[in-house]
């Protein structure tokens, strides 16, 4: 089932800036979708339009098949949003702000469910504290707790771990995985490529308001990723220059590097090894390095 469906979405500002250009994107129910992009790429604008905070210029957004403007009460009731900036009512107590959020989304009061959320996010001991007394990381958890207080089916997280320490980041990742197991669809934007690599099922890359690619995470790495084979040979050999030229190897002392891209080139690594053996080159070590998401991301947005 499709949870979020975006068709031909455009957003232009009065000053002529085109923030989103013909966005087409679908997110399946129960998946974790990560949208990567540099600052100003259009990530937050996209989330804000889906959630009803910003106006679109043209195009269509549907949530579980319903239009997010015509059926806004239905669509918004399914959505929980954690914005990029920490924005809370500083003088309000944690538990009261959660009750407020739940009420705002027209949900029957439930101390039991809110206790579960507080427990899940390690906020139980802080429930009667004023929000202003909490640390930045704790405030971030409160923001997430608020977004979950009305039991949403889709959770939007706009750079949820920005400025958060490693421990909290990992706690959050585990929590998101638990939510996913409970059937919650997660749409997150992030600057941390590691985050997308760790928890996302599918990844989209956005730059200058355009979606460059959306792909299953593993497939994306396979499709666009380069592989590097580093062969350490025992000593220099006369016939190496012929092999180096044939396979366009990079030579650094006794290390030979063979780089290929499965999408663009044919994998000649087997043939290379065979040629080396035939030439009586003694091989001490073979290493294989795969490029990671960060390299793919940088390659795409720097084009």
């Amino acid at each position, binding site marked *: 089932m499709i949870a979020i469906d975006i068709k031909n979405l455009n957003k232009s500002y009065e000053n002529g800036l085109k923030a989103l250009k013909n966005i087409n994107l679908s997110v399946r129910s129960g998946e974790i979708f990560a949208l990567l992009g540099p600052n100003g790429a259009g990530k937050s604008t996209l989330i804000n339009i889906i*959630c009803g905070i910003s*106006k679109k210029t043209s195009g269509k957004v549907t949530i579980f098949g319903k239009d997010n403007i015509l059926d806004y009460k239905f669509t*918004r009731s399914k959505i929980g*949003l954690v914005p990029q900036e920490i924005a809370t009512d500083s003088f309000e107590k944690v538990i009261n702000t959660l009750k407020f*959020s739940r009420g705002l*989304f027209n949900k029957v009061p439930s101390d039991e469910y809110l206790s579960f959320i507080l427990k899940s996010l390690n906020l139980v001991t802080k429930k009667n504290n004023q929000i202003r007394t909490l640390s930045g990381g704790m405030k971030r958890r409160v923001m997430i707790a608020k977004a979950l207080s009305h039991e949403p089916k889709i959770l939007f997280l706009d750079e949820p771990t920005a400025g958060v320490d490693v421990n909290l980041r990992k706690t959050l990742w585990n929590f998101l995985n638990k939510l996913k197991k409970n059937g919650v669809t997660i749409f997150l934007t992030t600057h941390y490529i590691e985050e997308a690599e760790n928890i996302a099922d599918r990844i989209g890359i956005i730059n200058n308001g355009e979606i460059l690619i959306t792909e299953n995470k593993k497939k994306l790495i396979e499709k666009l990723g380069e592989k590097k084979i580093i062969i350490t040979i025992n000593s220099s050999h006369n016939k190496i220059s012929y092999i180096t030229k044939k396979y366009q190897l990079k030579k650094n002392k006794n290390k030979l590097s063979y780089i290929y891209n499965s999408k663009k080139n044919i994998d000649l690594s087997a043939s290379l090894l065979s040629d080396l053996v035939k030439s009586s080159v003694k091989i001490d070590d073979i290493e294989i390095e795969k490029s990671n998401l960060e390299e793919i991301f940088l390659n795409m947005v720097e084009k």
Partner: protein
Amino acid sequence: MNLRGIFAIYHFEMSRMFRTVSQSIASPVLSTALYFIVFGSAIGSKIGNIDGVNYTSFLVPGLIMLTILNQSVSNASFGIYFPKFSGTIYEILSAPISPIEITCGYVLAAASKSVLVGLIILITSAFFIEITILHPFWMLLFLILMSITFSLFGFIIGIWANDFQKIQLIPSFILTPLTFLGGSFYSISMLPDFWQKLSYVNPIVYLISSFRWSFYGNSDVNVVVSISATFFFLVLCMVFVSWIFKTGYKIKT
């Protein structure tokens, strides 16, 4: 209808008031008490009766109205402006709550605070001054109607404002002068002919006059005209608010 959403906003705003009792209730009550002392006891004893009513008693409806108008505008404008300023407006805008429901939550809370403050001033003054309320039903109706109308007006100011200075701009430079010149402290009939005629252009004259009528049965203007003018202003504010939400003016980019 998202009644829980309306109540959530209402409850949040009322909690804010009770968290800041000194600012929300004590401060306007103290200011009004000072008016009573200065204009009522000190200067009022030299003035005598107006339209057959002791000057200090004459002051009560005007002072309540002065407080009500200021409190309604400031409560409602601050109520909606602060979420815009702090960024928490995102939650209201992304919730399944209609523009009318949002407005109801904020305006009803602001109006409730104003009515509460107005009643406290009335009860407090009754301890020191002889007060007659000839038309209690109409008095209460005026109190509620004007609180709601000016809360709605304040709500519009709060949406329009993009800094704290602008929130104070209209109350300080338009509303307060009009209220002072609208007969809070005197009867329009006491003014020279030219200024009397000019005063009838001031809409606040109609509000104060009709409110004073509910107390003492005397009015500078026709009460029906006053009620019609208040309703007209109420409808005008409602139309403007619905336009704001329809277009996303100063709320949505």
